[in-house]
Every structure is written in structure tokens, then in C-alpha cells.
């Protein structure tokens, strides 16, 4: 039998206006307990005002081994960047 409590990934919003950010993981019996533990483990010095938790097994991740091919389509699309477009110097603030 697996003696471990389920593993949760913890995301913290440090203040309003910012995204939740991954900070690490911890073990808990259920999501409520994961939130309470996350408060004690990851916000002892007011590092957060909002916590998200999700069981690690429920996360689907891209495969780093495919990343060359996977992200390649964006590589040659320089026209998606503002500097691709030539404008005379007289045009200010654009």
C-alpha cells in the first residue's frame, strides 16, 4: 500500500494584479488540507493572498523531448514582432 498522502502542486498569487505562480508541492489528504498546509509551508511571511492547489497527477505536461519541433513553428514568424515593420524615424511613439 502507498503510505503517502496524495501530492498536490501549489500555486500562489503574491498580490492582486499578479498571476498565481507555482511554488512547489506538498502532501495532503484532500484539497482543503492542501490549502491549509500550503498556507503554513509557503506563506509564513505574507508571500501570498490567494492559493490554488491541484493534485499533481491531474496535471498534463508537454514533453520536453519534443520541444524543438513543438515550438519550431513560431521560430520563423518574425512578422509577429513590431521590429519587422520598417517605419521612418519621424513617426514617433509607435
Amino acid at each position, binding site marked *: 500500500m502507498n503510505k503517502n498522502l496524495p*501530492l498536490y502542486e501549489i500555486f500562489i498569487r503574491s498580490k492582486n494584479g499578479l498571476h498565481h505562480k507555482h*511554488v512547489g508541492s506538498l502532501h495532503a*489528504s*484532500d484539497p482543503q488540507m492542501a490549502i491549509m498546509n500550503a498556507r503554513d509551508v509557503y506563506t*509564513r511571511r505574507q508571500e501570498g493572498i490567494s492559493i490554488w492547489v491541484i493534485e499533481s497527477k491531474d496535471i498534463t505536461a508537454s514533453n520536453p523531448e519534443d520541444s524543438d519541433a513543438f515550438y519550431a513553428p513560431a521560430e520563423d514568424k518574425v512578422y509577429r514582432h513590431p521590429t519587422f515593420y520598417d517605419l521612418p524615424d519621424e513617426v514617433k511613439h509607435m
Partner: protein
Amino acid sequence: MELSLEQKFQEKIDRDERIEPRDWMPDSYRKTLVRQISQHAHSELVGMLPEGNWISRAPSLRRKLGLMAKVQDEAGHGLYLYSAAETLGVERDTMFDQLHSGKAKYSSIFNYPTLTWADIGAIGWLVDGAAIMNQVPLCRCSYGPYARAMVRVCKEESFHQRQGFEIMLTLCQGTPEQKAMAQDALNRWWWPSLMMFGPNDAESPNTKQSMAWNIKRFSNDELRQRFVDMTVPQAELLGIKIPDPDLKLNEETGNYHFGAINWDEFWQVVKGHGPCNKDRLAARVKAHEEGAWVREAAMAYAEKQENRLNKAKTA
């Protein structure tokens, strides 16, 4: 020519890139990290014991609050580190089993007893001071989750060292008996603190590989020297004497030369024959076993809640 996975990995390291959990890595890199990170986690956990011993006997409420917060931080450090180790595929319970069975090591410093209140000052000042010296370079370790955990840890350590030094300072400015207590604590903690950096470089065969992998950035002897150079003036400020007759400033290098470390003692403690090895392990096992019913009850409650939820859904 097609590069092998191993070569590509080393190139990434040489570009000072970080390795993340799902990236390919050599087995030996993974094993080295699992061993180092879990030992580090165990040290944080066992490290709570010598200090926890004095929480109920702290001389004032101010000291008690500081010490409790510090010990709680160490629990947190253990948890950040176990979490980092788990990203390498090792289960939390496996690591606990290794600690509790005596198979895994932890920092030998925690096998010394805390005899007086001054020991709490000496630990914060010297032991946390040495830990900081070791941990700051680990913030740039090549393994991402370990490096990120160390950033959190280092942010918190600075208060640990300051609270320890403040305890020492208060004792040193107190009665002659109190100052003698501080001196006695320094006498007992000085050499074990120097041992915290590990064997001399010549006796440390894994250092070279760890440095090639950017796990380690400085050798044991380099870090130990820095620690001595940093700490000697602090002892002078306190007005107590470092228990080393050979300690002397080298005017040319600006480094302090220090006496020979008793490595026999170090290896004895590492092998389990320190003054408190048995007590520390027994306390860990007891805490773990006596907490079992809490974990079981929490799981039973979670299952019940889920069953209820499922029933409500199908009804």
C-alpha cells in the same frame, strides 16, 4: 556529428542552463541529486530537535517566539527540499524510511547536545551561519527545483543567524557567568561547525563531478575558509575566544589560518557514534509513528467526503 544525450546534457550545463524535472539527465546526475537533496531535507528535519529542546525553557517570551519561528522555518525547509527531491521520482515515504532506518545520513552537527541556553545562540550564529555559506551557492545549482527551494531557504536563514548572534551578544554583555556560558558554547560548537563543510577537498572524491555538473560551485575547503574568515571578527566583536591555538591571520592573503580538524571525530559521528545519534533518530521515528493515526484519519475523512460527493452526483 550527432551528439549523444550525455554530451547535449553537459553542453546545457556548460551554458549554465537549468535542468528541469522532465528533461533528460544521466542516471548518475539524478542519483547524486536525490542523495544530496534528501540528506539536506533530513538535516533540516533533524535540525529541529536540538533547538526544539529549548523552546519550553527560553528565557523570555521574545526569545521563545523567535526560536519557535526559527524551528518552524526549519520544518518548512525540510518540506521545500523533500518536494524538490520528489520531482526526481523518489517517493516521500521512501525518503522517510531511509532516514528512520538509519540508511540515509543527515548533517552530523545535529548529533551534538544542546546543554545550555547559550547553545541556542551558538547554533544560530555558527550552524546557521555555516549552512548559509553552503546554501547560497546552491541557489545557482543546475537543477531547477533544488535551486528554487534554496532561494526560499536562504531568504529565511538570515533571521536565524541574526537571532542566534543576538543571543550570544546579550550573554556576552551580561554577567561573567553568562559570558562564560557563551564561551563554553563556542568552545563546543566551533569545531563541529567547521566539519559541516565536509571532508577536505583531497578526501572528497565526488566534488569534481558535482562541480562539473554545476551542483556545487565551490569546494568544501573554499567554503570552510570563507566561513572562518567571516566568523573570526564576529567572535572578536562578542569578546569571546575561538578555541584554536593555531588560529592566525595571514597578512598576505587576508585569510585566517586555522588548526587541524579532528576528522576521526567527524567520521565517528557520521557512522552513528556521536553523542546524540540514537536520541535524534528515536525522536524522529517516534514523531512519525505517533502521527500515523492523524494521517490515517485525514485520509479516511477525505475518502468519506468524496464518496458523499459521488453519491450526491449520481442521485
